[in-house]
Structure formats: C-alpha cells, structure tokens
C-alpha cells in the first residue's frame, strides 16, 4: 500500500505554506492544512488498518477499519476521512484502547462473511485482509453461524472475475471505475450483506483500465482470467520494469516464476503513472514467449536454414560490408535508447550511411523537420505534472485514451479539477467526453487549416501560462499540421509536446536513429555537432556521412528501386507501414537484408540473415516516454541466452572491424556523456496547410486493444476490446442503416454502423482491428477519400 500522491493532501510538505500543528500518539508534528489523519499517521510510521482508503480515491469511510480516537469527539472517527485541524490530538490503536477495540471489532465483522479459502485464493500471501486480520484482529473467531454465499465466480468482463463472497464492500473498484477511469460500468448492487459489485445486464466492465481494480482490491474478490490460479505470490520473483507498449512510460512490476512471466502490475510512480496502468500494459505479455525466432538463420539456395552465431554474424558482416554506403537502416518504433543508439552509430560508422528511420507508420519530411526542430534532444518540457496544472490542453491528432492511456488518465484527473481540454479532430469521442473536453471539428487531412484559423477564445485559453499543446504521431499524415502546431505554440507560448504511440519512438529520435540527426538531436550537417559525435565515437568527423540521408518512405523507395543495395531491419512489421506493398517490394528488391527480430515476421521470411534478439524481459535498457523522461528498466531474466540488438550489432561491427560497444551500460554512459545538443537547431517547418480530400474522408487511429502483434495469445484481453465498428454522423447513419461497406483502392470492409458526433462527410474506422486493417484491406491512410455504401454490398 502506498502513501504518496504528488498532488493530493499530505504531500509536498516543503511547498506547503499553511502548516498546522497536531499531535498523533503523543508526537507533535506539523502537517499542511487539510491533511487526513491516516496520511499524517503514515508519515510517523503508524499504519492504521484500512480497506476502503486509497490515496488516489476520494475518501468514503465505509469500511470503518481505520477508526481512531480524536480528543474531544465522543465517537471514534475514521482516520481516512478525518481532516486534521490545528491543535488536534489524535490517538491511534497504539495509544487508545477505544481505537484498538473499535478496529478489532470491525476486523471481526469483516471476517464474518469472508470465506476461509485463503489457501486457494489468488490474494493469499499478499492480502491486506489477511495481513490486517493478523495485525488488528482477534486471535479467534466467535462467529459460528452460516456465512452468506454467492455463485462464484462471475465474469464482470471477459478478463475480470468476481468472487462476491470475498468482497468486503470497500468500493475501491467502483470508485476507481467512476473517479479515475471514467468508466462507471461496475457498481454496488443490493443492500446489507447481499451488497455486491455488479454490472448492468449485457454491459460488461470493458474498461481499458479494468485490471487496476484487481490490483487495488484489498481481498481476492477481483481476479483476472489470465492470472487466476496461476501461482502464489510468495513463489514469484518481482522485478521493477517499464512498460514497452506505448509512450506513456508506465512503471511496472513484472512477476515471474520458473522463467515465465505470470503477471504484471502497475508500479507506483507518482510522476508518471501514479499507481495505474492500462490493460494492455498489464495483460499483453504472452507475446514474449510465443512465436520467437530461436536461432540465427541464413538464406542458402533461396531457403532459410539455421546457422551458428559465428556463421550468421560473418554472413551479415560480409553482406553489409559489400554494400557499405548503400545500406538503409529501419529501426522500428520499439527499441530502447541504448539499442537505437547502437543502430544510429552502426549506421553512421559500420555502414557509412545516414539512411535511417525508426518510424514504421505514415511519415513525411515535414515531420522529420518538426522532430529535428522541436523534439529531438529536448529536455522534459511538458510533463504529467504540468498537464495536471495546465489551464488548458489542446489535443491535435491524438486520442489519448487509445494512443497514450496514462496521458488520458492524467488529463481526466486534470479536467476534474478544472483543466480545459480541447481536441482538434474528426470525432467527439467518448474519451473526450470523459475528459470533459470540447471538439474543434477538423476534416481528416484538413487539421492544419483549422489550427491556423483557430478562434480567439481557444487561442486565449492556450495563451494562459502553463497551457500545453499535445500533438500525436498521426499529425505527420496531414500536411501542414505539425507546422501549424509549432506556429500555434510560438504564438501562444503554450508548451509543445509530441506524443508518439510506440514506446521506442522518442528513444530512437533522441538516440539519433533518424536521418539527419545524430544523437541528442545534433544536426548531421552541423560541423560542431559532427565534431562532438566523432570525438565520442573515436573517429574523424570526415568519416561521418556528410549530408542528410533518406528517411521514411524514401528509404523504402530507394531499396525498391535499387538505389540501396542492403537493409538492416530491426523490429519492423511491414503491414504497419502506410504502404505495406511498397515495404514488401523494398525488402524483396534490396539485395541483402539483415533482420534483427524476436518474432517470425514478413521481414524474417524475406531476409538473408536473421538474427534473434532479446525481448524486454531479457535485456536491460531505457525508454524515453513522451515527456522525454528516461524510463530505465533492468533485466528480468538474468540468465537469458538471447542478446539485445546492441550486442548483436556490436558483433557484426566487430566482424567488420569497426568498434561498437555492445554493453548497455557502456552505450548508456557514452550517450549520457554526449548529452543533448545545445547548438543551433533546425527551423520548424512552415509547410502550407493541406487540402482535405473530396467526398467522404476517412478518420482512423489504432484502438488501444486491436490486432497489434504484441497482444497475441491473450484472448481474455482481446475479448474486452472495443468492437470493430464504423462511426458516422447520425445523418449519414440514417442513410446507411445498420451496416456500412467502406471501400478504398485496395478493397472493402463491411462493418456495423455506430453513430458519433462527427461531420456528415467523414467516416471513422479502426486502423488495425479484427476485420478492419486500413493499410491492407482498404489501401488507404487517414484523410483519404473512401466510398460508403449501405449494407454489405460493396
């Protein structure tokens, strides 16, 4: 149980100006006005028993486990809800027999209807009820009546199971759902001893954040289908880690047993994820085991065969050396800082190439310029804390609930205390409603024009000190948007934050895995920057590529057209590119392809040398989250036989007789010593606004839970995903009926129609969900013109 909150009462002692003096168990102390007894007692190391109390939830004082004595008050008071007043004299169970007996009495009542099934309960061994029954309860029970019973368990969702007889009605789960997630899909029903958590009929608890309720349940009432009965907590080894799924950068705790990860929990990081995470981060980890590339492979007579490491490394080194100067490097968006740095250095030294990019998605030169000018190597400017205190936050091409869920939670928390959220987008989503946000409608592709014509009221909002503009990676696909965002930030003084989706994008950007940018955001064409990097790498600056290389689709086109003769590909799924066909042709036409990959994929199938690399549990590293905050993590499995990308690259480099460190700590130290670029930066792009397409345009983003490969083999999680639907306006829906067929150049998808608040000439479909993959099924990207037809007839 954690005690800190970065903004709640009881924190930031040194910042508080309004201190009061109180006495707890005879100890005089000063606390900020408004501090709750339970928080102040924690600061003295006094643990008052509690179940319903949670520092991040509003007090409810329902369980009564924390009753303490307050001098002058006739009845014991709940420490979790009692606000301290100046001069208050409080006695906890250690100083007051009244408090001790009150707590003991409540504990006896709590155990009354609680089953004695600890030996088969998932919570057994880490259970606040068990622990506090030992510390605050009676040694023996006096109750010999019949306990109330329920059918067990019931599914409140496909993932979350509820054993109602274990529930102590603390209402943490229901308050979390309502107050934190904004998904009040579970509620207490019935009354008295029959009170129970439940859902409405046929409306399961399909919240993106449902797993948190399992973690904060103080008993074993809520369990997850994926972990239930899998292990006992005392058999687990726990390692603090960082979530690899998105750029929110959650701290996690990874628990494993006998070399297998059994579960992941949100870990407490008040500055980032507080104590929460999303269900993808919690449950999507089975990919780490299944479908792995297990051995190095080389292509011989057109077929891949297993090879030894020395043979494969030698083959890779020879092939790349032959193509030196004509090699493209595709890093993928999931690399750690250290791995990306190794790719960056490997490309510029071993391959003598600046043709490198980490963006496996729709990109544009405008984005490259924007990132170089405003993001790469920048210190943390906008942070989670600054979102919480921001008077206004403007979202551009960003749907935080799907694309950065912890940003969503923090924005929702901010909105609940007054932050104004405004979104420039195509759909007034439920996520936006949960942030009490307002929509500035923009036709997909036409965002830049909307931003440049933003009304004075919104500009005034953003001009308030502390306001933030958050722009998502999808902005790259709408011409002029990133330029307009930079202009708006300059004009209003709002802090600008770029929020990519994948965990490794910001890492790769700052590590220099982008054409034209050396580590720390150094322009490759800047002499001073070249000197600094060359010195760090122990080479003459003249050895570095002289001009900006290719980025984005240009690398793919060059490979397809024979201008590049080799590719080094690490962690790339071809279908994630805006044009998967181009990507396939690029791989097929590149003379020599080295694939560093942990899973079999379309790239490994086509590669000449396949080198297996570690997943996050098998290596140490650092992700930079959207803030630019380093999120280091250690190796979960210390005896893993796999190697990280950096180590494998260093072996290839060694075979090419080029020095490249492979040790994560060395790489981290080297990059740290280099530091961020302090010299002249690129100018932000000034791209003119793009014109939206004619006819019906497509809006789309990736849902949090979708067909992503890292969510494979987790059916319970997948079953809580949002259904694949097409969202249209009420007017459009009336014309279409219940289903719609969306047609693009590559084909059609037929989906159920869902009405949303959006313009009549737009349609939203998920980018990559079961039954709707827009890159492959439709052959389009957001902003494209599509054709809608009623029903299933294309």
């Amino acid at each position, binding site marked *: 149980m954690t005690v800190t909150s970065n903004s709640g009462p009881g924190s930031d002692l040194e910042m508080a100006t309004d201190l009061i003096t109180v006495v707890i168990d005879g100890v005089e102390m000063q606390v900020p006005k408004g501090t709750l007894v339970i928080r102040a007692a924690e600061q003295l190391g006094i643990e008052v028993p509690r179940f319903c109390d949670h520092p991040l939830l509003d*007090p*409810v*004082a*329902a*369980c*009564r*486990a924390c*009753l303490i004595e307050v001098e002058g008050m*006739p*009845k*014991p008071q709940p420490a979790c*809800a009692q606000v301290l007043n100046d001069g208050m004299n409080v006695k906890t169970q250690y100083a007051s027999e009244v408090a001790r*007996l*009150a707590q003991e*009495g*409540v504990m*006896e*009542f*709590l155990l*009354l*209807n609680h089953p004695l099934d600890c030996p088969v309960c998932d919570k057994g061994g880490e259970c606040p009820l068990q622990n506090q029954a030992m510390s605050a309860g009676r040694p023996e029970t*006096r*109750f010999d*009546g*019949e306990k*109330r019973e329920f059918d067990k368990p019931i599914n409140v969702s496909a993932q979350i199971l509820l054993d109602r007889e274990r529930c*102590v*009605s603390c209402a943490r789960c229901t308050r979390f759902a309502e107050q934190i997630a904004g998904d009040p899909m579970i*509620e*207490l029903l*019935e*009354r*008295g*001893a*029959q*009170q129970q958590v439940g859902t409405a009929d046929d409306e399961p608890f399909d919240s993106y954040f449902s797993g948190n309720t399992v973690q904060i349940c103080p008993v074993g009432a809520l369990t997850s289908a994926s972990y239930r009965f899998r292990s006992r907590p005392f058999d687990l080894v726990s390692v603090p880690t960082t979530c690899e799924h998105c750029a929110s950068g959650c701290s996690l705790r990874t628990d494993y047993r006998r070399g297998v990860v059994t579960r992941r929990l949100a870990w407490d990081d008040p500055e980032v994820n507080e104590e929460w995470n999303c269900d993808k981060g919690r449950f999507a980890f089975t990919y780490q085991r299944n479908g792995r590339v297990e051995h190095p492979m080389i292509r011989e007579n057109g077929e891949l065969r297993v090879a030894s490491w020395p043979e494969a490394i030698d083959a890779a080194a020879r092939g790349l050396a032959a193509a030196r100067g004509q090699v493209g490097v595709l890093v993928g968006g999931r690399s750690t800082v250290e791995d990306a740095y190794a790719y960056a250095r490997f490309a510029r030294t071993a391959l003598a190439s600046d043709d490198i990019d980490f963006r496996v998605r729709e990109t544009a030169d405008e984005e490259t310029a924007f990132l170089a000018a405003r993001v790469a190597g920048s210190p943390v400017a906008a942070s989670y804390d600054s979102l919480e205190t921001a008077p206004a936050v403007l979202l551009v091409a960003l749907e935080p609930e799907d694309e950065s869920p912890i940003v969503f939670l923090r924005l929702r928390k901010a909105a609940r205390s007054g932050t104004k959220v405004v979104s420039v987008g195509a759909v007034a989503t439920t996520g936006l409603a949960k942030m009490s946000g307002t929509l500035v409608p923009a036709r997909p592709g036409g965002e830049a024009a909307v931003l440049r014509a933003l009304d004075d009221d919104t500009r005034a909002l953003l001009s308030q000190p502390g306001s933030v503009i958050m722009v998502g990676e999808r902005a790259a696909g709408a011409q002029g948007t990133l330029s307009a965002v930079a202009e708006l930030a300059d004009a209003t003084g709002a802090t600008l934050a770029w929020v990519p989706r994948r965990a490794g994008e910001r890492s790769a950007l700052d590590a220099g895995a982008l054409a034209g940018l050396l580590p720390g955001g150094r322009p490759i064409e800047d002499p001073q920057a070249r000197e600094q990097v060359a010195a760090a790498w122990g080479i003459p600056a003249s050895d570095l590529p002289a001009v900006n290389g290719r980025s984005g689709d240009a690398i793919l086109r060059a490979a397809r057209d024979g201008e590049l003769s080799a590719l080094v590909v690490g962690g790339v799924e071809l279908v994630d590119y805006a044009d998967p066909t181009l990507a396939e042709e690029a791989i097929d036409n590149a003379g020599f392809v080295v694939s560093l990959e942990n899973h079999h994929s379309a790239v490994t199938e086509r590669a000449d040398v396949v080198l297996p690399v570690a997943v996050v549990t098998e290596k140490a590293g650092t992700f930079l989250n959207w803030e630019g905050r380093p999120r280091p993590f250690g190796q979960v499995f210390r005896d893993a036989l796999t190697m990280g990308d950096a180590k494998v690259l260093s072996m290839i480099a060694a075979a090419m007789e080029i020095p490249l460190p492979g040790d994560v700590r060395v790489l981290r130290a080297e990059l740290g010593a280099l530091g961020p670029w302090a010299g002249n930066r690129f100018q932000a792009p000034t791209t003119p606004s793009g014109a939206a397409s004619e006819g019906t345009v497509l809006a789309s983003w990736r849902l949090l839970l979708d067909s992503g490969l890292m969510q494979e083999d987790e059916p319970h999680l997948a079953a809580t995903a949002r259904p694949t639907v097409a969202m249209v306006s009420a007017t459009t829906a009336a014309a279409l009926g219940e289903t719609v067929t969306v047609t693009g150049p590559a084909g059609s998808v037929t989906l159920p129609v869902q009405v949303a608040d959006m313009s009549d000439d737009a349609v939203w479909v998920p980018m990559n969900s079961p039954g709707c993959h827009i890159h492959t099924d439709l052959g389009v990207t957001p902003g494209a013109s599509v054709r809608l037809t009623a029903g299933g007839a294309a």
Partner: protein
Amino acid sequence: MTLTPVITEHWDDPELFTLAGYRRHGGYTALASALKQDPDAIIGTVKDSGLRGRGGAGFPTGLKWSFVPQNDGKPHYLVVNADESEPGACKDIPIMIANPHALIEGVIITSFAIRANHAFIYIRGEVPEAIRRVANAVREAREAGLIGTDIMGTGFDLDIVVHSGAGAYICGEETALLNSLEGLRGQPRLKPPFPAVAGLYASPTVINNVETICNIPYIVGRGVDWFRQFGTEKSPGFKVFAVSGHVNRPGIYEAPLGITMRELLDYAGGMIDDRPVKFWLPGGSSVPMLTAEHLDTPMTYEAMAEAGTMLGTGTPMIFNDTVSVVKAVTRWLEFYKHESCGKCTPCREGTYWITGTLERFQEGHGSDREMETLTDLCGQIMGRSFCALGDAAATPYPAAMKYFRDEFAAATSTPVDDSFDPAASYVFSGAAAR
C-alpha cells in the same frame, strides 16, 4: 394534561385535505403574513420558538435553518423528509393524508425563509394514499397561485416536487435521501460537508420532517409565546403522538410535550384486557425500551434522555406481558438487517450476525456465551457505524438485556414460543387467545 389538537384540530372535517377545506379553518393565513416579513425574521421566530425536529433527533429547527449560507450565489433547497418508515412510527403519513395543506403551507413559508425556490417532498413509496393527497394539494396550491411564480404578488417563486421513494428505510437518513432524490443509490453521504452547506445537487439544503414543517404555519401565525405555552423550556410545543400496541384505542393523540405515557395510555383507552404494561418504546424501534416504572416520565426530549432513552419520533409502542422480549428484539433486528444499506461494515455485518444469533435464541438454542457476545457486538456497532441506522440496530438488545436478562437466559434452553404463546399477544378481534 389535556390534549391540544393543533395540526390534528380539524381532522373530523372530511374535506380538510382539500384547499377549500383547509382554508375554511384558517389555512394559508399564516402564509400571507409570513410573505410580508423579512425572511430572517421568520428564521428568528422559529429559533425563538425553540421548535425541535420531530423526525427523531430533536435538532433545533431554527438553528438548522440558520446554517444555510445566505447570498452565496447558489440555489437553496428545502427537502421534506416524508419517508416515514420507522417501525412503530405512524404520524407523518396520517398528517399527509388528513391535512396535506398544512405541510404545503409550511413548505412555502420555510422555503421563503431559507430563500429556496425549489422544494422537494420525499414520500415513502409504499403509501400511495399519502402521495396522492400531497400531490393533489400541490396541484391545488399551484392552481390557486400559492406556489409558482410571484406568489401573492411578493416576487417570491417556488415550485414543489413530490417524489416517491422506492421502499428503503435508509432513505429516511437525510443524506441517503438526498442521494436517492438525485437518482443515486440510497446510501448515506460522508459528512462534512453537511447538507446545509452542500446538500442536494451540492447546494445548501434544509431537510426537515413532515411534522416539523407542519408546525411552522402555526408558529408563524400564532406567535412564539403561543407556541411556548405548551411543553417545557427545552421541549417547547406540542407533539403528534401516535400510540400503538396493546391499547384499546391506538391512534393519534396530539398533546403538549411533557405529557406522560400514563396519561397517553388513558387517552388510548388503557391496556387491552387491563393486562400490565411490560415494556414500551417512546418513539420507534430505534430508541431504547422502557418499562412500567417509566410511565410517569414526562415525554420530553430531556426527560427521556435522562431515563436512558430518546423521545425519537414520539410514537409510543406499548407491549403487555404476553410478549416475548426476545421475539420483539429479534423482529426489530430482522428489520435492521433487511434495511441495512451495506455501506459500512459494522452495520452490514453486525446486523447479519446479531440477527442470526437472536433467531437461534428464539428457537431456544442460545447460550450464555452468546449473550455476552451479543452485548459486545452491539458495542462494536454503536458509535462505529457510518450513520444512525447502525446505532439504531445496536439499541434494542442492550436495552432489553437491561430489564429482561432472564428472558434471554431462558431462551438458551426453551423456545420463546413455549414460554410465550404467540396467539396470546394478537390484538386483532377474534384472535384465538382472546
């Protein structure tokens, strides 16, 4: 002490429930004078009258009104608690059926005093007769211009909403009532903030009992001195006593506070078959029971407290010697177990445990050890629960043990139906035992 019918004065008029009937007996004259006064003057009058809440707790009404912050820019609300559900209490419902316009007049004056433009009457859902009568009275008052906009040309606006509860005792708890009124679960709210500061829709709200509000037109119309001629210094005024149990004429008796149970018993025609009073409760099942030795104790807030009980709702239940205390206490606990909202542990679990144990006593399967345990359990609920429902549930057993320990001891070996023939205590005519 003689009866002093005020609220009940004209209940023999079958038309009293109509606007015309009420007016025939001077109805709405107090309103006319009240609307000409300064609202604060009305609050002052009610404060000076010493009127105490008739819902059970006896909190000074004028003081409660004065807690409402003025000129705070927020809407104010008056909520009338008409969710009369206390076992043994039957006074608000007859008032609403017989004299609903007294309630409406009180609501208008009170709303004017606390600057509320919206009043709600939350009526227990199981009594459609009362809901119909009050709804009809509101309609009549609206048609007569007594509520609506610019009432009697004073510029004061008021609308009254009649809301039907859905059958939960907990919704008589004022903050649970507010939740229910807002469409939320009927469970009590954490205080502070208190309703006077942040009540209905987070705005300043006064919650008063039906009978309390019905006092207002008479206090405002006839004056503080008139009101204070009844009752005592600490319990001024009169009270609608609803007498029930083993008496010959159960019913409503309006009398000054300070009347004794013995006097009320006389008005109620004495005990059936002249059997002795075994135990009685001054105001609902939530107050500790008394015995025949307390029949001469004045029925005032202070004297009842001195006797170790509470005036409560002022609706005495009288039981004769045919009744098993064990069985009576078990019935009440079954009620509290059924009505416990489940929010807090002591009440939710405590009522479950105590009731189960008492049911075993009833079958003659109690034990000495459990008698002590039950005392402990009540102590573990009293003052530890979230709201007064838990305290109420923890009240009957210790009070019964104080006077009738032997009966619980007997129930460790003998079923109570063997000790007390259930049929003997039936009060309806033609009952087997009579």
